[in-house]
């Protein structure tokens, strides 16, 4: 086992659990507890990727969420690919398979690097806006090539085998981050009695304590963390969520936490106890107060060639050494602006490797660690910085020079120090992403040289997240914040007896402001100094952008693409802002900040989707007869969320054998059955609203366009409903069950909106009316028995007098059908004799089967929505939403008979009918169309013109809303809206089709079959 950079001991990895993994086709070994990044570094893998624009070799820079370079493709099968995984955040598991996202044929030998090398100078920011323009038609060709070179990882190519879910959580105090501040805050809030959730994005909770050199209460910091976590785990008002990232902070303290449950174990979730766990889970947390203990990210310094593998963050160097037992090189140069980074050099030296020098930008550093470094014999070069890294695929030396920060120049001689690693630190940026998701703008704090969150009620930043860095202060701040969060909710916090552990206050010297390091050459002439490594944005690019007039930081970002990578500028944004400020001669706060958006780190679509996919994407609503429909071969149509039988194809014997009927064949058969015998439709999906109250009748009169005063109990009436804009909204029949009691039906899709509509008017405008509404859609099953034989069939099963005089058209009666109490309505949507049988839904199947048991001799035929449509269209009955579209009035439909112009109350929609546009003569009006060629079935949606020879654009005068073949007429027929159509009966219109044919049709009335309506009265 060859892990050249692995220390023999130390770190939090488990050396007894070796793991094997593959990267770019090579097999390597690591240990449990490693991240992919630490394992790669242990194995001495320098080059992990190629950069986005210039295809430069890139290595690992950081140890956490801020890593811009080590973005890999994970997964071994087409279905389990995960693009763009940060190696620093991926736990190592046995058999892990990953490869670089960029580079062809591989990252090592990448051919695009020549394009980057030679073409680099010709790719200033926004170069694509300035080129590839001529000729216009060529852009699509250029684009194809450009697209291929862009992108990072690849999408999976097969459906995801894993499942995801959501967990809705509620807590008093949510603590994000389980480092020293978060642990202290959680402990304080929990002791006060609050329901606490503590989450942390890392594999192990503890944050900076895990690699800290500090002693807390005389024990190592990591041990204190472990003990504190154990305490929290035992409290039943505390939920600990490790491997869980808070990604989005939404309104009113709603925070989304992404918990990775199996990603550290393998590329798919593995069954446990015979049950398949979800791969990851989204906790949707509603919190009372939120503590953001998210720490701070170290800023790298911006110097020439700071992107060559071997350039790392100082803190990352410490983390790799102390947490993973990995020293990522042999000879280190550290370039820093602050004390804290000195740890990296001390750790490096303790690990037995060589420190060439610490290069400190300050003239007289003097903190504790500085002294320790001096005492350890490390060379410290003050007032200086690394101005350039040398080396192509790995750092070979650092060029160090004295700098004048004020004048932004290099002063004096440049010294070249041989080394293979350059660690840099330009200070820290509080992780303020979540705080700014809610729209609160962060503010610049000069004392810590960083942006800190503004105060928002209920949101508390603690510790590093608000620029408090010394460990003793962080612990105290966390405790204090936890107490404040809990007391804000009315909990009484115990006296801070459980106060922070004792921790030696370090003596730290002040840091200096250093972002971009000057070079001997001007920024535009110096070798590239990278600001945003992932998007290859350089200091020079920012300078060019500002020269070109992009002065707003948002413009700079957009023009250079800074911060638009998958790391969202965690490392580079502040440096970029500082450089823009320098170029514009402004301060950083004048230059402004940018608002961070969710997500903090990328989140798989799948976990946002949760279980709402496949069959659970949207509820499928079924009638009580679904099982029968399925057993009888129905094809289904989606109507809203309902599944409705569309038609019932039967087997058909032909010369070639048996086959299923086509839809046309089935519909012709079903139509004939209804017109000649008897058919049955499952109409249970119709919306049904029970309306009771002394003012029910008055209410109906206000809501419907027509009159309701005289409808007697036992009678049914068709009603039309408009919005107050006068446009038709819904229709249906309403039955008078008793003087103060009505049953309203609505269209299938509008059941819920109509109920809400009734409530709206009742509650907001007419609360004085005594009326109430209850949905009974699901309570009643509705079966429409229709056709000339309907009476005979029903008579066999009912005690209701079906005599045509005793039970007239538009009457309803009570009785029994097949032994089941039923309300039967003589209403017809087919134009034939029809009985709508309503029974409590429990008995629908019983009644339906009983009808079929008796129906054979009458040829009882089930029919679906398609046949229903043909039959109703033959009668000119409209479907709201098909024959109307939100711009159609009752008058446009020719339904003056359903408009109570003289009703005393100005009903909903009435006033709008007299607006100038609704009074227009040439409005589009509903008519029938009869194609000149009876074999033609016009296309639904076909546009209508008066002059087929008119040049394009042709004036269109309407369109076909419904069109079918009528077995009764033995021809096609249609409903359509046509300008001034009601006055154009008998005229010809034309329908130009996509294939060049032009159909001619005659405008006729809308009733094609039995225009006098005799059949439904039989």
């Amino acid at each position, binding site marked *: 086992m060859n892990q050249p950079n692995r220390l023999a001991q130390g770190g939090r990895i488990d050396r007894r659990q070796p793991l094997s993994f593959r990267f770019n086709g090579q097999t390597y070994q690591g240990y449990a507890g490693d991240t992919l990044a630490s394992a790669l570094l242990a194995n001495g893998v320098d080059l992990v990727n190629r950069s986005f624009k210039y295809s430069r070799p890139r290595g690992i820079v950081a140890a956490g969420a801020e890593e811009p370079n080590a973005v890999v493709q994970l997964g071994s099968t087409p279905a389990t690919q995960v693009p763009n995984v940060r190696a620093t955040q991926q736990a190592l598991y046995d058999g892990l398979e990953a490869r670089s996202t960029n580079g062809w044929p591989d990252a090592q030998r990448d051919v695009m690097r020549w394009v980057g090398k030679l073409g680099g100078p010709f790719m*200033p920011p926004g170069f694509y806006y300035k080129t590839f323009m001529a000729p216009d038609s060529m*852009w699509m060709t250029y684009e194809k090539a450009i697209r291929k070179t862009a992108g*990072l990882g690849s999408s999976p*190519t097969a459906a995801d085998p894993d499942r995801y879910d959501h967990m809705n959580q509620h807590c008093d105090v949510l603590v994000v981050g389980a480092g020293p501040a978060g642990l202290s805050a959680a402990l304080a809030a929990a002791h006060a009695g609050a329901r606490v959730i503590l989450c942390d994005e890392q594999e192990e909770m503890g944050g900076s304590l895990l690699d800290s050199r500090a002693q807390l209460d005389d024990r190592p910091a990591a041990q204190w963390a472990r003990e504190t976590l154990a305490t929290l785990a035992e409290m039943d008002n505390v939920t600990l969520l490790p491997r869980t990232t808070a990604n989005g902070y939404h309104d009113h303290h709603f925070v989304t936490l992404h918990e990775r449950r199996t990603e550290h174990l393998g590329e798919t979730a593995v069954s446990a106890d015979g049950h398949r766990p979800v791969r990851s889970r989204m906790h949707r947390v509603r919190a009372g107060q939120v503590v953001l203990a998210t720490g701070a990210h170290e800023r790298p310094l911006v110097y020439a060639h700071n992107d060559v593998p071997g350039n790392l963050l100082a803190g990352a160097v410490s983390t790799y050494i102390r947490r993973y037992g990995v020293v990522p090189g042999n000879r280190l140069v550290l370039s820093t602006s602050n004390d804290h980074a000195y740890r990296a050099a001390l750790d490096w030296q303790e690990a037995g490797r060589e420190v060439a020098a610490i290069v400190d930008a300050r003239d007289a550093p003097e903190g504790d660690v500085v002294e320790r470094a001096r005492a350890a014999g490390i060379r410290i070069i003050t007032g200086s910085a690394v101005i350039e890294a040398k080396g192509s695929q790995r750092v070979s030396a650092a060029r160090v020079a004295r700098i004048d920060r004020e004048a932004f120049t290099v002063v004096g001689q440049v010294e070249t120090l041989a080394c293979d690693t350059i660690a840099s630190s330009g200070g820290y940026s509080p992780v303020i992403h979540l705080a700014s*998701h809610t729209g609160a703008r962060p503010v610049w704090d000069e004392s810590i040289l960083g942006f800190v969150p503004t105060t928002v009620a209920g949101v508390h930043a603690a510790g590093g997240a608000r620029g408090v860095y010394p460990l003793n202060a962080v612990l105290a701040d966390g405790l204090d914040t936890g107490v404040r969060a809990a007391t804000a909710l009315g909990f009484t916090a115990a006296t801070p007896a459980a106060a922070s552990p004792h921790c030696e206050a370090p003596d730290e010297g002040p840091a200096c402001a250093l972002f971009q390091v000057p070079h001997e050459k001007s920024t535009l002439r110096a070798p590239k100094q990278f600001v945003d490594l992932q998007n290859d944005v350089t200091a020079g690019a920012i300078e060019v952008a500002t020269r070109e007039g992009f002065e707003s930081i948002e413009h700079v970002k957009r023009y250079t693409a800074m911060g638009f990578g998958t790391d969202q500028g965690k490392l580079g944004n502040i440096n970029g802002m500082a450089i823009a400020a320098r170029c514009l001669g402004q301060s950083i706060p004048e230059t402004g900040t940018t608002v961070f958006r969710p997500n903090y780190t990328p989140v798989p679509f799948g976990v946002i989707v949760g279980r709402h*996919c496949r069959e659970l994407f949207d509820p499928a609503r079924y009638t009580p007869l679904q099982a029968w429909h399925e057993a009888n071969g129905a094809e289904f149509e989606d109507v809203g969320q309902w599944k409705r039988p569309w038609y019932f194809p039967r087997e058909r014997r032909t010369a070639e054998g048996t086959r299923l009927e086509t839809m046309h064949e089935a519909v012709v058969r079903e139509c004939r059955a209804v017109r000649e015998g008897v058919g049955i439709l499952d109409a249970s999906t119709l919306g049904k609203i029970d309306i009771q109250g002394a003012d029910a009748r008055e209410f109906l009169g206000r809501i419907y366009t027509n009159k309701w005063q005289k409808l007697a109990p036992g009678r049914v009436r068709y009603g039309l409903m408009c919005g107050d804009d*006068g446009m038709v909204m819904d229709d249906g029949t309403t039955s008078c069950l008793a003087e103060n009691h009505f049953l309203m039906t609505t269209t299938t899709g509008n059941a819920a909106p109509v109920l809400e509509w009734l409530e709206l008017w009742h509650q907001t405008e007419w609360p004085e009316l005594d009326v109430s509404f209850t949905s009974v859609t699901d309570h009643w099953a509705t079966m429409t028995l229709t056709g000339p034989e309907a009476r005979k069939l029903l008579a066999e099963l009912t005690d209701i007098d079906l005599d045509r005089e005793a039970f007239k058209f538009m009457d309803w009666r009570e009785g029994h059908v097949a032994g089941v109490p039923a309300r039967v309505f003589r209403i017809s949507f087919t134009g034939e004799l029809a009985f709508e049988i309503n029974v409590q839904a429990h008995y629908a199947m019983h009644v339906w089967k009983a009808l079929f048991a008796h129906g054979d001799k009458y040829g009882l035929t089930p029919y679906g929505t398609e046949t229903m449509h043909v039959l109703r269209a033959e009668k000119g009955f409209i479907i709201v939403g098909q024959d109307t579209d939100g711009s159609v009035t009752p008058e446009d439909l020719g339904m003056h008979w359903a408009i109570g112009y003289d009703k005393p109350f100005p009903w909903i929609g009435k006033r709008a009918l007299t607006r*100038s546009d609704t009074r227009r003569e040439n409005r589009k009006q509903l008519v029938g169309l009869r194609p000149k060629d009876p074999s033609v079935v016009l296309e639904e949606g076909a546009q209508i013109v008066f002059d087929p020879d008119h040049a394009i654009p042709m004036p269109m005068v309407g369109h076909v809303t419904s069109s079918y073949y009528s077995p009764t007429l033995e021809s096609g027929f249609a409903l359509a809206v046509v300008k001034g159509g009601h006055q154009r009966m008998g005229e010809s219109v034309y329908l130009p089709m996509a294939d060049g044919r032009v159909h001619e049709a005659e405008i006729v009335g809308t009733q094609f079959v039995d225009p006098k309506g005799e059949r439904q009265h039989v």
Partner: protein
Amino acid sequence: MQRYSGFGLVKHALRHHEDWQRQWRNPTPKPGYDVIIVGGGGHGLATAYYLAKEHGITNVAVLEKGWLGGGNTARNTTIVRSNYLWDESAALYEHAMKHWEGLSQELNYNVMFSQRGVLNLGHTLQDMRDIQRRVNANRLNGIDGEVLDAQGVQSLVPIMDCSKHARYPVMGASWQPRAGVARHDAVAWGYARAADALGVDLLQNTEVTGFKIRDGRILGVHTNRGDIEAKTVGCVTAGNSSVLARMAGLNLPLESHPLQALVSEPLKPVLDTVVMSNHVHGYISQSDKGDLVIGAGIDGYNGYGQRGSYPTVEHTLQAIVEMFPIFSRVRMNRQWGGIVDTCPDACPILSKTKVKGLYFNCGWGTGGFKATPGSGHVFAASLAKGEMHPIAAPFSIDRFHSGALIDEHGAAGVAH
């Protein structure tokens, strides 16, 4: 104006990019202008450009309270199409489409207009009727479009789930090949640079705080940088239009809503067209950089916060994964919100107002970006002539009193 070209790029590279010129000046406001455009987004900048270029009116100021193109121009999902149902909208959006074709050349700025085609999926019989209706109308209006069946959709987008197993199986789609996407920022910058070159003053960080109105006539505006006079003022401020109208004592039939969008991490090319579905409710395309750019409907409440509710994002991604199950493991990088000014009939307002000389161009809802060149072009003509351009005329505010709405809600599919 410094002309851009590949050759020029080489020249600049040899000079270490040290002498690129500003793309636009940063002038101080003059006391008065012939025309003031309030709002430095795509529409406002385009209006200024066409005023200068086509009408010779160069004494123009564009007042922008923040940074150019910083509103909905910077926040949309960049879809461009013109397959609208009604004649009036079709004319307007097709007018824009014709300008898109050739815009990069005209502005000497590559706006990356990529005519990769847009699919509007149908999942129900009614969807398919609406699609037929719209495509037929488009064709007779001279706009390209076809109706595809499920197989046709599958062959265009092999990675989509067009199977019968879907909760709402794809039944077909409308397909507009000339439609596509463009690079949103470049549109604003291209117009800005071209307008500036013609003499237009682009005044950033200049916020209008009130209007100077006398005898029912506009005389100028108050700003945080002082008063500026003009007898013609065009307001093109999208989500903030109601706020501005209020300053002039006007009310508009608008509501400003959050519209959210999101992107995945960048991926190698995987989706070559734009796919939109009104029924399962989501739309998606892949940017040249590789991100999947995704959006859906607006949040139902009024909001100026440039953010919306999380469930909207959940529903949108449910729709995307329903259509593209292979994207389940792809990761969402970033989400954001714009403020869209929506009209009751989902059509814009291009209109005079009761205040003489004060015009409004607003109400684009979710459909503004695609209209940018057409909107600017006809609005400029209207401001220049004092009469609404014939294509703009039907979009008058008066329609909300007469009832002559242009109801694109009706059957036009997704209005994005």
